[in-house]
């Protein structure tokens, strides 16, 4: 399996603060990776470094290129959607298509037209006349028509209602993703994309707090519903998080075997959100 992104000791300093502090991680081809962290943890900085939008320290290799010095070459293979606000408001839909066709050698106009045909978007409209959801659809149609190897999504559905969010990810999964492509995605709405992720990258205060595939996460972490009678015994095994629900306590364990876990009660798979709170919150929230 090819490595699409590999970072070693990736750091970025803003005046007085380390936005990224010696990050090591790698992303393999054909994965959908969720880059997840609280605000200000360094997500956006990491993405900017990967896209060649900001200089950095340490080693970073994206598709065999140094992103900052080779950004424009890299962008032939990498697509990027930030939140919906970034398509220029004065641009017409037809101009947007002409533009991408003109500058991007891997853009397939017919494919883009096909995606747009399924929407309400008119060719003559300007971006400022479209709703937020339509702008996101337009951007997605442009990007999905580009035969790229890496797609980076930074809060792509921010401010969209649930219908558009659903459709956005469904389309991404059904019409775009295949084993030759890789998607790196950040979002606050973790629950919504949980089912489509194959890998997790947690970032906390500029450091990688967790880098694992979903399978690894499932094997390593579990959540057990423990009754009051067995709570003390379970606590002795050092859960990394605990919260009360419906008269029982949900304890999150790292590295407990299924046999051990079952002794205490009902065992569940850990949700990404719970895991995130456990690892980021530093214990009981």
């Amino acid at each position: 399996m090819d490595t699409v992104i590999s970072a070693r000791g990736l750091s970025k300093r803003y005046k007085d603060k380390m936005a990224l502090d010696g990050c090591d991680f790698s992303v393999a081809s054909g994965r959908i990776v969720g880059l997840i962290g609280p605000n200000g943890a360094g997500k956006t900085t990491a993405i900017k470094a990967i896209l060649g939008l900001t200089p950095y320290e340490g080693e970073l290799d994206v598709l065999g290129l140094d992103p900052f010095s080779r950004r424009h070459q890299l962008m032939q293979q990498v697509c990027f959607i930030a939140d919906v606000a970034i398509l220029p408001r004065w641009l017409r839909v037809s101009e947007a298509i002409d533009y991408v066709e003109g500058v991007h050698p891997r853009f397939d106009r017919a494919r883009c037209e096909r995606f747009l045909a399924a929407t309400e978007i008119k060719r003559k409209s300007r971006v400022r006349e479209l709703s937020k959801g339509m702008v996101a659809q337009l951007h997605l149609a442009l990007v999905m028509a580009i035969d790229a190897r890496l797609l980076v999504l930074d809060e792509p559905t921010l401010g969209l209602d649930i219908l558009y969010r659903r459709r956005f990810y469904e389309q991404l999964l059904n019409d775009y993703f295949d084993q030759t492509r890789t998607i790196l995605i950040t979002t606050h709405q973790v629950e919504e994309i949980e089912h489509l992720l194959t890998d997790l990258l947690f970032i906390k205060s500029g450091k990688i707090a967790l880098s694992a595939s979903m399978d690894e996460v499932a094997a390593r972490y579990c959540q057990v519903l423990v009754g009051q009678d067995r709570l003390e015994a379970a606590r002795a095994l050092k859960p990394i998080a605990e919260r009360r629900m419906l008269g029982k306590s949900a304890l999150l364990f790292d590295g407990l075997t299924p046999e051990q876990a079952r002794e205490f009660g009902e065992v569940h798979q850990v949700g990404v959100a719970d895991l995130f709170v456990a690892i980021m919150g530093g214990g009981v929230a």
Partner: protein
Amino acid sequence: MNQQTRTFLTLIKRELWEHRGGFVYTPLIVGAALIVMLLMGAGSAWFWQLKIDGAEAMTEGALKLAETKVPAEQIKLGVQAFLFGTGLVWQAVMFFVLFFYCIGALYDDRRDRSVLFWKSMPVSDLETVASKVVTVLFVAPLLMMTAMMVGHLLLLVVAGVLIASHGGSPTALLWNHANPFPVWGTLLAAQAVNALFLLPHHGWLLMAGAFARGKPFLWAVLPPVLLAVVESFVGFTANFSLSKIVFEFFARRAAAGVAPVTINADFGDERSFSAGLSGTRYAADLSQVLDRLSTADLWIGVAIGLTFIAAAVWLRRYRDESTN
């Protein structure tokens, strides 16, 4: 067509899409305004303000008299002065359009964050800035020139109709002497020389736009002013003032931007009439425009302009757009 050429043409098209108002509609509006002015009489008095034997120009008697008494050379000069005069209106308007275009060219997309979209495309920062520079140097001036040429032809038709409606002969008084090509040639040459002459101006504005995180107009205009203020505190030395040099450097260029040729013809009174003209003479001299090419001032300016543009490319690349 290879990809690089295709990309560059697309970038130029992009500039036109965004700035249709300034580059296409504005020159058309200027033409329309000039025609309206001519029809309202202001223009006609301005270009044909002769008093022939004490008679007002736009009367049947005066026009008839002019047909017989005014030498062809003189009429030709007058028509040229008219064409140059109106041509300068387009040029001056274009100067201001380009002033604001340059300030915004590398700033506006950073303000609305669409820079992230442009930068998500396989286009280098050098190509981006180069497309803006080419737009300033060639694309916008050529569009303006085209509008001007069409406008000139319409103005000549309207002026001819005006003369005819006052009882004069438009062919004898206007159209026979209205070969616009020497005028257009001179203005085109002036535009080309100006492109070089104004390079430091435009380079500075592009750089200011690429640098500013807000208020690009102030960043463009304040530094030279501040330099003068600081100097006034430090105190002038008798024979050296940096701000004066800087001011003159830019003021000369701004003046050339507003009026790239000087009109030599003077028709203010009867005296210029009898001054007598010999040989072929144009109201604005091509050699006067081309002479600027051999001045050190122009080429020093070009070098400074290229430095600013290089700085703009650097800023475009290194300016961190993060808001958090």
